[in-house]
């Protein structure tokens, strides 16, 4: 059987007494690009946090590469091959771009030169700015550094939280081009996004969350043609 890379089985997550995720089932296959869509406060980020281990589900299981990671710490999961581009990027502002990349490779004790050259080939702009403080970069550049940093650990699956947030429309387009290029390079993706239109043009499959429940799922093409979804999120 073809094992999914990441799988959430019947996950229920609570913040204190508040039930956030309700019986969420979700999986990402190897090499797949999955978009997680939904409006405000529907549990998109919480799903990502559950996958990453920042939130431990009350019931249900999380599998990564066939390993039960439900109660595993964040660091362990990342060592297994997860990487995250957090919401708002969260770069280390006063540290140089190079140091940010070094931290991205913190998991592997010996950072290979290949990692750097691969990332620098992909992002010449990041290479140029390597000695600059990350906080002094423009929004688009910071996004590149955030992705580059995540790639430094050679992840199998990249989790991205709102890659379009805080970017100019032009840069959003660029950002998604970048993401799909990465995907073409062999990295599986789970991308949380409000900009459903944009996400569905590049994704293979999509899930739609509504108040903590998955209400729709399917190939991206089908989803973007779904009448209900179009009315609710795509605005046309």
């Amino acid at each position, binding site marked *: 059987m073809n094992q999914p890379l990441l799988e959430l089985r019947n996950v229920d997550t609570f913040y204190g007494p508040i039930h956030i995720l309700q019986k969420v089932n979700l999986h990402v296959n190897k090499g797949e690009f999955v978009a997680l869509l939904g409006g405000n406060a529907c549990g998109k980020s919480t799903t990502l946090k559950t996958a*990453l281990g*920042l939130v431990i589900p009350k019931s249900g299981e999380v599998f990564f590469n066939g390993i039960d990671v439900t109660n595993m710490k*964040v*660091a362990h999961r*990342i*060592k297994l091959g997860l990487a*995250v581009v*957090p919401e*708002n*990027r*969260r*770069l*280390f*502002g*006063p*540290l140089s771009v190079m*140091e940010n990349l*070094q*931290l*991205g490779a*913190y*998991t592997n*004790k010996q950072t290979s030169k290949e990692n750097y050259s691969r990332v620098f*080939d*992909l*992002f*010449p*702009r*990041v290479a*140029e700015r390597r000695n600059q*403080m*990350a*906080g*002094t970069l423009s*929004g*688009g*550049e*910071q996004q*590149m550094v955030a992705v580059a*940093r995540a790639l430094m*650990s050679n992840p199998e699956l990249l989790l991205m939280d709102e890659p379009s947030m*805080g970017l100019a429309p*032009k840069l959003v387009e*660029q950002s998604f*081009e*970048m993401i799909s*290029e990465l995907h073409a390079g062999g990295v599986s993706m789970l991308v949380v996004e409000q900009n459903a239109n944009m996400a569905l043009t590049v994704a293979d499959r999509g899930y739609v969350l509504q108040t903590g429940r998955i209400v729709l799922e399917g190939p991206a093409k089908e989803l973007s043609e779904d009448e209900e979804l179009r009315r609710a999120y795509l605005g046309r």
Partner: protein
Amino acid sequence: MSNQNEQEATTRGIGTDEWVAQHEARIAKPTTAMGKLADRWATLPAVVQWGIPLIVVLMIPFTTSSDYVLRIGVNLGLFIMLVIGLNLTVGYAGLLDLGFVAFYGFGAYFYAFVSSPQFGISWPSWISLPFVVVTTAIIGLALGTPSRRLAGDYLAIATLFFGQMFLVLAVSSDAVQFPWMDEPLDITGGPNGIPSVDQISFLGFTFNSTLSYYFLLLGIVVIGIIATRRIHNSRQGLAWRSMGEDELAAQHMTVPVVRMKLMAFTVGASIAGLAGAFFASVQMGVYPSTFKLPLLIMLYAALILGGLGSVPGLIIGAIVMVVLPEILRFPDYSNYLFLVTVLIGSIILIKSWKLVVAVFAATIAVGFVANAIFLVVGVPYLPIDEWIEGPLAPILGTWIFMPEERLLFGNIAFVLLIVVIAWMTTRSKRVRLFAMPFVLWLAIFTWEVRLLMEPSITRQLLIGALLVVLMAARPQGLFGKPRVEVL
């Protein structure tokens, strides 16, 4: 971005555009003499950059026979050790540890316990110093373990309490009644501390002169600086700095945050403990009053003044905080320093050379007008040679009117100065500029008439004012990086 650039961008890969191509050309070259000099300095190898100050410091004992100067050097050495330790915890790991001085105290007391007649123990230094380092490290770990989940302000409160607890323990543990003993045990000597502590000795050489401690601490500080520079770029240092910046993001990088925090506490504590042992040996005694809050404030002031996390910064900060108060013990020096501070402060504030000249001219005029008014009213005054000497006398003597009743006039001027400054802060820029000559004159008048009479108090006042001016000009500290927010 024009269409043409866009096309270029797509052919060269993600994020390539004219910025990358123009990178070299966009680097600004320094234009001023100072800027060029700084640029030159920056290109020198690190060995030369650090070697020059080191040679100067090595020469000092041969140029002076004054024990006082060497003693300041020893104090500075101890202070730099403490700042290096504090920098690891606060500057790198971002843990606001307000109980840091307690580790200094624990180190001093532990050293005294095993090398004084207090318990009749006299261990050789090669055992007692490692003993102090290990015990203070354990205490650091003991404080860190319950505090590891506290962040920011909460950690500050917990550690501040720890620091005060140490003081209470040190002062009150002079009669501890253990159930298995008949007599209460005197552990710390109470408020009088522990006198006659052994001095450090290695291989038959006892450190018993100020000069010997000067070189000992110089050696330790050099090692400390090299170690700090290595840590800064190491995997460990990187992990600490990332954690200090953003704990959650550091966690995402798989930095073991809890372990790193405990390590920062432990290493910082053991460095402070070692400094404490040296201190006890230099003093040949330990007294609880050394480890009070003012020392903590001085340490933080040095660290913040120099710029958190910067090695040259913390040394300059330490020099300012240790040497400056000593210089200000002499009224002559403090007089110069005050005038220079006022001068530089107002230049920074005004920001335009033409206006600076105008304001200073007006200030001088205000002084003479005030003199005339005082004379017309008939206020009795002191002749010049009764209140000022030295090179400043002919200038200040004619410009400043020195009333006979210095206290009365000085106090009035002081209150007036505070009121005027408070009033000024609510006014527009224009009004402030017009009021400036009067304020400057009033400040100098207050200083000469009243404040210079009590150097011990004005010393603190002047250091405070200096710090305010410096921090206003460079909020990130002398060598710190300016803060940027990641949005």
